[in-house]
């Protein structure tokens, strides 16, 4: 496991206390898990993602991520509709470990409200939690 100082937390996105990041992208939000989370999990074997078209409230469980060590629920960073999921993760779950912020993205959300990210933590506040 990495030293907490080496955990990468990009400043272009926000985080919830359950280690899920959300980044604005053309009216939607893309979400995935943080570098801290993937590091804690170790090798990700399976990501259970929801069906597109489903709606979840902020804080609701939208799926789970499974590694050799454990299975962990994934909590919605904002309330909204799932408009897309990362199909690549079905065959390449390891992308969550190698690229948690880019290729390892998990869901694309159409948010219920205009500016929901304000309720989330910025990278500094999130780092303090770890």
């Amino acid at each position, binding site marked *: 496991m990495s030293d907490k100082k080496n955990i990468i937390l990009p400043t272009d996105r926000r985080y919830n206390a359950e280690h899920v990041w959300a980044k604005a992208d053309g009216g939607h939000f893309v979400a995935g898990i943080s570098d801290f989370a993937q590091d804690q999990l170790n090798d990700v*074997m*399976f990501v259970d993602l929801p069906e597109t078209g489903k709606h979840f409230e902020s804080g609701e469980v939208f799926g*789970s991520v499974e590694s*050799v060590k*454990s299975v962990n629920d994934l909590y919605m960073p904002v309330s909204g509709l799932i408009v897309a999921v990362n199909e690549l993760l079905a065959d390449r779950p390891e992308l969550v470990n190698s690229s948690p912020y880019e290729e390892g993205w998990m869901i694309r959300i159409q948010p219920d409200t205009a500016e929901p990210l304000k309720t989330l933590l910025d990278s500094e506040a999130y780092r303090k939690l770890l």
Partner: protein
Amino acid sequence: MSSKRLTVIGGGPGGYSAAFAAARSGLEVTLVEAGSIGGTCLNSGCIPTKTLKASADALELTARLAEFGLSGSAAVPDMAAVINRKNKVMTTLRGGLEKTCDNLKISRISGLGRIVSAQLVEVTAPDGGKHELRGDKVIISTGSKPLELPGLTFDHKHILSSDDALNLTEIPKRLLIVGGGVIGCELAFIFQAFGSEVAIVEGQDRLLPLPSIDAEISQLLQRELKKRKIAFHLGRVVKEAVVTSGAVKARLAPSPFSATPPKGDLEVEADALLVTVGRIPSTAGLGLAETGVKVDARGWIMADEGLNTSMPGVYAVGDVLGPQKGMLAHVAAMEGVCAAANCLDKGRKMDYSLIPSAVFTTPEIGCAGLSEAQAKEHGLNFVRHTFQMRQLGKMQAMGELSGICKIIADASSGVILGVHIAGPHATDLLAEAVLAIKTKTRAADLVEIMHAHPTLAEGIFEAATGLVEQNTD
């Protein structure tokens, strides 16, 4: 004084358990069976499914040889040989039951039994001949059979019942299973292992939608299905299915049983449809209407806690009592023993309060006691803890990961109220949980008991430890 004579109609787990117990207690017993001894359990249920599962599990292991440092390639199933093995196991077990009947001097008669009165049963033999069996008491244990949906008549080729599924020598390329209960889910894993592309349609909002099955267990199972690319359509029912050019085209509509049904219809094509939506009573020709033995609106025989039907001297046990009493072989067996005792006026009462559930999916599931939803419904003040089985050394050593052990306990006393296990051998691990619940063991007591290491039984120990730690702050 001559012995009391008992006629048992139906030789499944309910019937033969009643017959054996009665014979051992000194009753003169005649067992009537229209098909094969062993009933649904031995001939078209528990036993054949488990033998198929053993073949499926062996097959799956051969695809993982490299993981265990072995060279070799995955095996190929020979379904005729798989079915042959199943039939051999069934023959062996039937032989065992027949031998026990002989040893206990139980007379066996082949034929369809009809109750004329508590003292007279008429049996129609396969050749049409009629025999009259005079006696003092009757136990009905005629069981149940697969429910056929309207418009989906079993043709045993494209529209299959669970009976058909257990005799398939050719694996359907695409299999649509209608009904995501225990039977549907078990067969989904078995057929996927043998090479079918499987999909399940379930009218409710989760798989294994039984009150006794905890939501976390359904969630785990659904995740395991996704890993195996077994599709499942929740909140949907089959509106219609048409067999054309050797395939089945099914239209799946939103389900009236769903709290959040999906929108619109879905078309699914398969090579075969397997219907596992429930069962109906096997009471044709039994003479219930003529003799006035009361049945409910669905035809299930009504019996009190002593297994007495509305006709004095006539008892009923097993599946024929319907889903309210738990349609399981172990329930039938207990009922059979209870009814046999009551034939000798022992006044025993059946206790349905703790019925273990064993589900042979992959991973296995073993549940007993209250689910979290049931605990909430009862307004209980409870605590819960879920332990991930992959944290056990034995699991890692075995190369198995998926599983949980969840304990629900009373918040003030710590008495264990429910245990829900998923993982390898969960169905065997369940017995400790049942014993703990029955004896009102507290989580704090369970952690005082050494559990051998490294074993899967440590899962329940760790779940109890987690519960105790969580609640001592």
